């Protein structure tokens, strides 16, 4: 129940194709709902003498409630795209908007606050701070937000507990398995209750059992307000999402949706 539409890189379904008229978040909410995130003609160029177009003229809209995967071979620009979606990077040209706000217009403190409040990252290599406990790592996402330490600890613990790591709160990353570390990273991503969760190959460093567990958690992270975006090179992992964006050479070559 999906459609291949390489001609259309944008999020709007081809009106000529009846199979795309699906009850996606976009379709249900109609034009009144603002996209959570919007890329408009975005290019990201690396290098000066030799220009590498990691992304070329990409447009994409992500609506609240979407569970989306970005799939493509290595070097196709997936991570570059995720960096732009998460405001860790800025486009060379084009516009990135979060909740209608052009991120290039913001200074670093504002952009950082926007990132901290609306985005939760998960990485392939977990990226936990080694000298902090699981709890400390999750708490990191709640710093500089005018939250009392006691409340911060409480919220961090709840996020860990929610992912079945309540007993591991005091453990340092080296004392935990890969699957556990990735769940700590997930707890860190959700503890701020972000509008969007961006994951780059979240199962890439895990064995199949742990990968399946993490994917299961991912599928449950979505809410009507929240979008979950997962980058992967693995088509079977990509297929667990309801919307699949395929990339090649810095361009979107397909944008497919299926019913849950």
């Amino acid at each position, binding site marked *: 129940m999906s459609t291949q539409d390489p001609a259309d890189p944008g999020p709007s379904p081809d009106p000529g194709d009846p199979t795309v008229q699906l009850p996606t978040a976009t379709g249900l909410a109609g034009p009144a709902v603002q996209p959570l995130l919007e890329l408009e003609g975005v290019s990201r160029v690396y290098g000066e003498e030799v220009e590498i177009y990691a992304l070329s003229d990409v447009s994409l809209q992500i609506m609240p409630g979407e569970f989306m995967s970005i799939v493509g071979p290595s070097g196709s620009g997936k991570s570059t795209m995720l960096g732009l979606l998460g405001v860790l990077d800025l486009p060379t040209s084009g516009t990135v908007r979060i909740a209608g706000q052009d991120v290039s217009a913001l200074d670093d403190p504002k952009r*950082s606050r926007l990132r*901290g409040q609306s985005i939760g990252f998960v990485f392939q290599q977990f990226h936990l701070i080694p000298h902090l406990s699981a709890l400390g790592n999750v708490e990191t996402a709640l710093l500089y937000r005018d939250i009392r330490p006691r409340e911060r600890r409480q919220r961090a613990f709840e996020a860990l507990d929610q992912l079945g790591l309540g007993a591991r709160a005091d453990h340092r990353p080296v004392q935990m398995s890969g699957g556990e570390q990735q769940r700590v990273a997930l707890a860190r991503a959700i503890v701020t209750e972000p509008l969007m969760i961006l994951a780059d190959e979240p199962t890439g460093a895990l064995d199949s059992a742990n990968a399946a567990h993490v994917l299961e958690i991912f599928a449950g992270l979505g809410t009507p307000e929240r979008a979950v975006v997962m980058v992967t090179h693995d088509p079977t992992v990509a297929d667990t999402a309801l919307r699949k964006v395929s990339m090649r050479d810095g361009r979107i070559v397909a944008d497919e949706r299926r019913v849950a």
Partner: protein
Amino acid sequence: MSATRDLVGVAWTGLMARKVRTLLILLGPIIGVASMVGAVGLTESAKGALQVQLATLGTNLIIAQAGGTFGSQNPTLPGDAVRRVDSVSSVTSAAATTNLSGVISVPVQGASTYYEAFPVPVRAADDSLPSVLQVRLIDGRWLDSADRVLHLRSVVLGSGIAKQYGYLPGETRTIRLNNTNFGVVGVLGKVPLDPTLDNAAFVTQWAAQHVFDTNGKPNELYIRTKDGTTAATATVLATAINLGGPDQVSTQVPSNVLAAQAQANKTLQKVALFAGLLVLTVGGLGIANVMSISVIQRSSEIGIRRAVGHSRSKIGAQFLLESLFVGVLGGVLGALIGIAVVYLVSSLEHWVVEIGYGQIPIWMGLALLVSVIAGLYPSIRAARLEPLETLRLG
């Protein structure tokens, strides 16, 4: 501000997570501040001790000696030198001593060979000598008019001689001066301004002239002046004593030596301060180096923090605060160690502790400044790191 509280927590945790590394970079400010606090404290305490000594001894004592540049065999001063000196208006008191070079002192019978080989200087002294020197008797009494009038054969020992002779306080002891018995009546206290007096035995001028047949002409005068006139008095004394006669007179103000000693310590203090400054600077380079490496080692931490919303300035502040903590901690520990060293050495040397607390904030501030400057560049680098490059998205 809660952001400041969070920042302090993050920086402190970062420092404490690497205790050995932190201890190593703490060494610079610790040693630097400790040596500066120690240098000032030790020299001040030593100087304090010297000043206390100077204050009790007085800086207004002049010693006038016969001889000068062209000395004869046994140069002497005029017989009425004390009277001549007393006539100088700035002189408050004066006492003379005469070297009795031919007199051999023997503490016990039958041991004369040794004491002939190493003779104890015997000196005839005026009644007023202890009061002019401002030195007390540590035992018994000084020579007085009764000794002279009643022709008593009394002797007072210098503190060094008393020790050498094994003289016990209050002991009745007879010693022999050129085969004449003399009774020990007292022991003179230490004379820091003229230690030669510690190693002499003193008899009256009467004994000098009538027992040992000397002419009574003094060799040294000890002269006290009114405060502030000492240097001027010293320059006119020679003339006042010889009154144009043939006698050569040299004068010295012995407290000047102690004062110069205190001055010399000032130089030592400067050297030590400079060394402390050097340690601090080198320590700063160490901090800068270690922090720079730390920024590279912790680049992934920096990327993570950026990803969860910490701004560039927060990252920079985090690293700068770590350096600042090193400066504060090193400064405090260094000051404590420096103070401890001063207390320890002062108690060993019986000095009165003089820390110079007023200067400690300067050294601690300097340690802080050096640490913060050292942390500046690494912090800027940390803030400028591109999060995507450090995170290496898959």
